[in-house]
C-alpha cells in the first residue's frame, strides 16, 4: 500500500459509485452512489427492503455488485469476500451478534486473529492491546467474562472491540440500538463519538430518525433500491428525512380515541414461570386487563417478558399462580395448552415471528391456519380443504395488505413486515377476546408499523383486551392505556402513559426505579 500521504487528504473514506445489484427479478440496488468522509458518523436510513442491507453487504463483501465501483481512501478496490473488506479496514457489527457465547470476551476478540497455533505467547499481548482499546474508546468490558452471561449492551461492546482489535478504520453498524435500553443506547452513542474523535469512520444503518438526528454528521436516504437524498444532518429535520424515506408525508400523530374500558377479561395472579434451564424467569407477577384497553409491558428484553407471554399463551407450564380467562382458571395443577386457550378466546402474535408464529418452509396458506388447523371450516371430511384455505388466505392477505398476494409462496420469502401482517391477520380475524402481542413491529418498516398500530387500536376500540410487550418505548407510549414495567421477572412499575416519560421508564427498566 502506498503511504497515505500520497492520497489527497480530501478523499472520502468510502466512496461507492453506481452500485447496481439484482437478485433474480428484484432490483435491490439501482445505480447507488454514496460518499462517506473520514472521521464522520454517516447515517444510512431507509425502510425495510429499501436496499441498505444489500448495499452494506456489498461493501462488506457478502455480495458482489453486478456493476459499480468501490473506492477506499480514493483508491479503487475489489471486495469479493469479507476478507478483502477486513484487509481494507472495514468491519461490520451485525444486528444479530456473531459471538461465541460460551467463550470469554478475550477469546471472542482474538478469534480468527490468534497470531499462532499456540495461544500462550499471544494471549498476554492481546490482553494488553484489548485493555488499551477499551480505555481509549470507553468500551468498558471485563476481558474474562463469559460472553453468554453479559447483557446485550455489553455484548455489543464486545463486537465493537473485536472490530477495533482487527484494526478497523471504517465501522458499519447495522441497526445497533434495536436491542438496547435507552441508557445503553446513550452509552453506545458516547462510544461512537469517541471513535469519531479518534478519526474512525462510522456508517450507522438504522430506521430510527431520532438516532440519526442525535449522532450523525451526514445522512443518506434510500428508497426502493435508489439513493434519494444526501443531507447534512444539522441542515435537515426528521420530517424531511421521513418524507424522503417513504416518499410521502408521514402522519405524525396517531388518532387515539379515549379508551372505552369494560370489565376484566384476563386476570393474572402470583404467576411464576421457570425456563427450560430451571431458572425462575417470572417471579410472582399479577395484573389484569379489561376489555377495551391496551396494557403495555415495557422492559429490556430478557427480563421475563418472553416467558410471561409464553406462559399466558399456553406454551409453557406455570410454576405457581393462576390465570383466569373467560371464566376459566388455569394453574400449575390445571394447565391449559395453546389449543385449549385459543378456544377460550386467546390469540397470540409471538415475538419470534419467523420461528414461532409461522413455519418458515411452509407455504403462506399453510402458515395461515397454524393453530387453527383443527377448525372444521378448513376441513372436508377427514381431509384439509386446501382450496378453501387458499381462498381464506388470499382474503386475509388483501385485508391486511400482505404483499405479494400469493397464497402458495413460501412464508420465509415474505419480508418481515409482510410475515407479521399475515400472522396478525390470522390471529386478529378470529375476533379473540384477548390478544397477546410480542414485539409487533420489530424489523417492520415505517409504513408497516403505522398499519399494525392502527389495527391494534381498532381492535381495542372494538372492546378487546390487548397485552402488548415491546422493547420499543415509543411504541408502548403511543399505544398503551396502561404501562407495566418489567425488570428481573417482576413488575416494578404500573403507570399511565400521560404520567410517564422516557427517562423515568428507562430507569425503571434498568432496575433503578
Amino acid at each position, binding site marked *: 500500500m502506498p503511504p497515505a500521504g500520497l492520497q489527497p487528504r480530501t478523499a472520502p473514506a468510502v466512496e461507492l459509485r453506481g452500485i447496481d445489484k439484482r437478485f433474480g427479478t428484484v432490483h435491490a440496488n439501482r445505480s447507488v452512489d454514496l460518499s462517506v468522509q473520514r472521521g464522520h458518523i454517516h447515517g444510512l436510513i431507509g425502510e425495510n427492503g429499501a436496499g441498505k442491507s444489500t448495499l452494506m453487504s456489498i461493501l462488506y463483501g457478502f455480495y458482489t455488485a453486478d456493476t459499480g465501483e468501490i473506492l477506499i481512501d480514493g483508491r479503487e478496490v475489489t471486495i469479493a469476500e469479507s476478507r478483502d473488506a477486513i484487509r481494507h479496514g472495514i468491519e461490520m457489527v451485525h444486528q444479530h451478534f456473531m459471538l461465541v457465547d460460551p467463550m470469554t470476551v478475550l477469546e471472542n476478540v482474538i478469534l480468527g486473529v490468534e497470531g499462532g497455533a499456540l495461544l500462550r505467547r499471544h494471549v498476554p499481548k492481546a490482553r494488553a492491546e484489548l485493555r488499551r482499546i477499551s480505555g481509549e474508546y470507553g468500551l468498558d468490558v471485563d476481558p474474562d467474562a463469559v460472553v453468554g452471561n453479559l447483557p446485550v449492551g455489553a455484548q455489543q461492546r464486545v463486537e465493537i472491540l473485536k472490530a477495533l482489535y482487527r484494526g478497523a478504520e471504517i465501522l458499519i453498524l447495522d441497526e445497533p440500538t434495536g436491542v438496547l435500553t435507552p441508557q445503553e443506547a446513550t452509552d453506545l452513542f458516547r462510544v461512537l463519538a469517541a471513535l469519531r474523535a479518534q478519526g474512525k469512520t462510522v456508517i450507522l444503518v438504522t430506521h430510527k430518525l431520532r438516532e440519526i438526528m442525535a449522532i450523525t454528521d451526514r445522512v443518506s436516504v434510500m428508497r426502493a433500491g435508489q439513493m434519494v437524498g444526501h443531507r447534512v444532518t444539522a441542515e435537515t429535520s426528521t420530517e424531511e428525512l421521513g418524507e424522503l424515506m417513504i416518499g410521502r408525508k408521514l402522519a405524525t400523530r396517531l388518532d387515539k380515541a379515549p379508551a372505552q374500558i369494560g370489565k376484566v377479561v384476563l386476570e393474572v395472579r402470583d404467576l411464576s414461570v421457570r425456563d427450560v434451564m430451571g431458572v425462575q424467569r417470572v417471579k410472582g407477577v399479577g395484573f389484569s386487563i379489561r376489555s377495551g384497553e391496551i396494557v403495555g409491558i415495557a422492559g429490556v428484553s430478557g427480563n421475563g417478558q418472553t416467558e410471561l407471554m409464553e406462559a399466558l399463551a399456553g406454551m409453557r407450564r406455570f410454576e405457581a399462580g393462576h390465570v383466569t380467562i373467560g371464566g376459566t382458571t388455569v394453574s400449575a395443577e390445571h394447565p391449559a395448552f395453546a*389449543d385449549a386457550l385459543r378456544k377460550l378466546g386467546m390469540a397470540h402474535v409471538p415475538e419470534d415471528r419467523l420461528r414461532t*408464529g409461522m413455519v*418458515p418452509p411452509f407455504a403462506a396458506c399453510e402458515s395461515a391456519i397454524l393453530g387453527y388447523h383443527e377448525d372444521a371450516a378448513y376441513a372436508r371430511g377427514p381431509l384439509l380443504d*386446501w382450496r378453501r384455505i387458499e381462498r381464506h388466505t388470499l382474503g386475509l392477505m388483501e385485508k391486511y395488505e400482505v404483499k405479494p398476494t400469493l397464497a402458495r409462496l413460501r412464508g420465509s420469502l415474505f419480508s418481515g413486515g409482510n410475515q407479521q401482517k399475515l400472522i396478525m391477520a390470522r390471529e386478529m380475524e378470529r375476533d379473540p377476546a384477548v390478544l397477546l402481542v410480542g414485539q409487533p413491529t420489530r424489523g417492520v418498516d415505517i409504513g408497516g408499523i403505522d398499519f399494525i398500530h392502527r389495527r391494534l387500536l381498532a381492535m381495542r376500540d372494538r372492546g378487546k383486551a390487548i397485552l402488548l410487550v415491546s422493547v420499543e418505548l415509543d411504541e408502548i407510549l403511543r399505544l398503551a392505556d396502561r404501562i407495566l414495567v418489567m425488570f428481573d421477572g417482576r413488575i416494578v412499575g404500573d403507570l399511565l402513559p400521560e404520567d410517564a416519560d422516557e427517562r423515568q421508564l428507562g430507569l425503571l427498566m434498568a432496575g433503578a426505579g
Partner: protein
Amino acid sequence: MSGTALRLPWWADYILLPLLNLVLALLAAGVVVLLTGESPLEAVSTMVGGAFGSGEGIGYTLYYATDMVFTGLAVAVAFHCGLFNIGAEGQAYVAGLGVALVCLYLDFLPFWLILPLAIAGAAIFGAAYAAIPAWLQAKRGSHIVITTIMTNFIAYSLMEYLLVNVLIKPGQMSPETRFFAPNATLPKMDAILGAVGIDIAQTPLNLSFFVALACVVLVWVLIWHTRWGYALRVVGASPRAAVYAGIAPAGRIMQSMLLSGALAGGVALNEVMGAQGKLLINFPAGYGFTGIAVALMGRNHPLGVLIAAILFGALYQGGAELAFDMPAISPYLVVALQGLVILFTGGLATMLRPSLVRLLRVGAAAR
C-alpha cells in the same frame, strides 16, 4: 432475497437434478469399471438389460423395489416429523415375527382372513418395535438416531434367539420356520395375472407390491391432506411453532414413529409371507438402510420414493446380472457401484444445485 435467488422450478428440483446426479454416478461407476479392464458401456447395457430387458428382470426389479418402497416410506414419514429413523431394518425384522405368528398358527383360517391379519401383524410388530426409540425420544430426549441403531442390534439378537431356539422347524440345522401353508402365503404376481389371462414370467414379485403402491397413496394423503399430517409436518419443520399452535410434539413423535415402523413392517410381508413363505434369519438384508437412500433421493415425497425404489430395485437386479455375466466384475464391485449411486443421488443430492440455479438464471436472462 438470497432465498428468492435460490429458487428453481419444480421440474428442475424433482426431475432434472436427480437425473443429473444419476448420470454423474454412472460416469463415476464407469471409471471404476474401466479400471477393472471391462467396458463400461457393456456393463451399463448388461445392467439395464438385466433390470428391464425381460419379464423376469422386471419382475425381480419390482420385487426388490417393493421392499424399498416400504422402507423408503418409513424413513420419509419419520423425516417429515423431523426424525431420522435408522431403525427400519430392525423394525422390519421384528415385523417378520408378527407375520410369521399369524401364518404359522392361524393357518386354519381362509386366505382372505389371514391376509388382513398378517398385514396387521406386520404393522403392529413393526410399530411396537419403533415405539421404544420413539418413546425414548419423545419423553426422555434420547436421540432417535442412536436409539434406532441400537434397537437394530437388539432386533438381530432377539430374532436369532427366537429362530434358533423357539421357532425353528424341528429336525433341521438352518434356523428357519417350516413353510407356511399355501393359504397363508401371498400369491405371486404370475399367479395373480395368470388368473385374469395375462401370462408373465415366474418371479418372487407378489401381492405385496400392490400393498406397497397403496401405501404410497396412503402416505401422500396422510402427510399433505389431513390435519394429522399437517400437525406432523409442523412438528418436523419447527417444534416451537408446534408448541405455539397447541400441537404437542411428543404425541406426534410417537405417532409418526409408529407409522414409520408399521410401514417398515411391509418388508416382512413381501419377504416372509411373499417371496420365502417362511421366516428365516436376516431376511431384511439391509433394505432398511437402503430405504434411507431411497427416501433421500425421493426427497421424502411418496412418489419420489416410488421412483427411487424402482431405480434401486433395478440396481439390485441389474447388479446381480452384472456379477453373473461379467466375471471380472465381482459382487463386491457391484455393491461399490450401488454405493456410488447412493453417494451421488443421496449424499451429494444437492451438490449440483447451485450451478443449476446459476445456469437457469443465465438462461432466463438470455431469453
